[in-house]
């Protein structure tokens, strides 16, 4: 066991404007490691597989339990959370000591190495007003109750951690298109179902029907497959297709 190693190939980039390059690392194997702990080993001893001293790889992480969304990266080409990607599990699929490839997500600007800027997703959340408005100049009392039947599935949407995996996998989210992407669409479902949030339902539907909105979805359904929080994104997109079609007809004839 002692002389076994974890081989890594990491796509590195010094600054947002510089060109990326590849660097390989070789870390002594220990059982039960994950990608974050492997990256920490590199930080302890920043030497690449050729034995040259190098800058430690930069990445972002936070909660270490797959709820914050900060450590999203491409692990062997698939967007995942580094903290929840166990080395032993990866080797079960690929075979022991197979090189593990780490890249930053490609749909977001790179800040440095594996750190990306997920600002576009937070802007999308602002665009669709992904919150419940309760602020006012006087107390307005208790709001209506959230029916338990709806709480059950709406809670699943609230697990979204804006990690960007769905945006990464979506073929219609790319520099050529202005598609808002699956994550924000699901949030519209959550806040339009919430009894207080529903009071601003039309504002969110209008935002979702503006340029780059829900109509740009092409049903590739990758989002659903890669979502680490197992949110049934495709169901929520379909449900909002229904809501926006209904609303657009209503808007046409009755507004």
């Amino acid at each position, binding site marked *: 066991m002692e002389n076994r190693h974890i081989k890594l190939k990491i796509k590195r980039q010094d600054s947002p404007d510089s060109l990326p390059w590849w660097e390989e690392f070789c870390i002594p194997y220990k059982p039960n490691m994950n990608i974050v702990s492997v990256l920490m080993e590199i930080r302890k001893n920043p030497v690449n597989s050729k034995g040259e001293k190098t800058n430690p790889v930069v990445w972002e992480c936070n909660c270490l339990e797959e709820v914050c969304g900060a450590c999203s990266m491409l692990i062997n*080409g*698939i967007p995942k959370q580094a903290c929840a990607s166990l080395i032993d599990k990866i080797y079960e699929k690929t075979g022991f000591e197979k090189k593990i490839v780490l890249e930053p997500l490609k749909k977001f600007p790179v800040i440095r190495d594996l750190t990306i800027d997920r600002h576009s997703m937070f802007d999308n959340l602002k665009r669709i007003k992904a919150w419940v408005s309760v602020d006012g100049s006087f107390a307005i009392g208790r709001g209506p109750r959230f029916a338990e039947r709806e709480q059950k599935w709406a809670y699943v949407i609230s697990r979204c951690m804006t990690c960007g995996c769905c945006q990464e*996998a979506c*073929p*219609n989210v*790319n520099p*050529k*298109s202005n598609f808002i992407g699956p994550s924000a669409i699901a949030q519209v479902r959550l806040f339009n179902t919430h009894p207080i949030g529903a009071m601003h339902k039309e*504002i969110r539907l*209008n*935002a979702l*029907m*503006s*340029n780059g*909105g*829900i*109509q*740009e*979805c*092409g*049903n*590739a*359904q*990758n989002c659903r*497959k*890669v979502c680490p929080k197992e949110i*049934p994104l*495709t*169901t929520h*997109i*379909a*449900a*909002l*297709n*229904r*809501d*926006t*079609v*209904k609303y*657009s007809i209503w*808007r046409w004839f009755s507004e």
Partner: protein
Amino acid sequence: MNYKKSNFLIRKVHSLLAIIPMGLFIILHITLNSSVFYGGITAYKTVINVMQNIPLITEAEIIIIAIPIIFHAIYGLWIVYLAKNNVLTYTYYRNWAFYLQRITAVITLIYLLFHVAILRFLNHDASVIISVLNRTLQNPLFFILYVIGVLSAIYHFTNGIFSFLISWGVIVNDKSQKVLQYIVLLLFVLLGGLSVGILGKITYF
């Protein structure tokens, strides 16, 4: 909220036109062509003659067929351009269907241009159309090209039914999406089989 500038309506109409009238027309077209199985060359000739003598047929061709197809094709090419396909990374069936939908779109468009030019504009007489088609299909290369064209059109149509029903919000939950997926695949097999059968029959007239 300036929603008037949005492409929401154009996207929905783009999807709807592919079903009504274009999809209905494909069904009608295949149904009429299947007359080759019920009376061979004579029945086929009669069907073509009847079709050509429907009152206001030219106007109907322009309004019901030509304009929707031209709009769908032009806007559709824009949609094809917008996607950045990734089937090699994400090898799920729906992602392949998404990619195939775009590939078949382009193949169908090229096929349709030839199909309409040769069998609608260059030749208009029933017996000429049949003999041209018969001679062309006897060449194995053209037979294969024809099969690819026809199957592309049918895949694009049947998979398009799936996307249409979702983008118009008819089908929502997982179970119905799954059932619909199987239904459209079955429809592809049935319509595809029938169409290839028709081509085979015409080849051996």
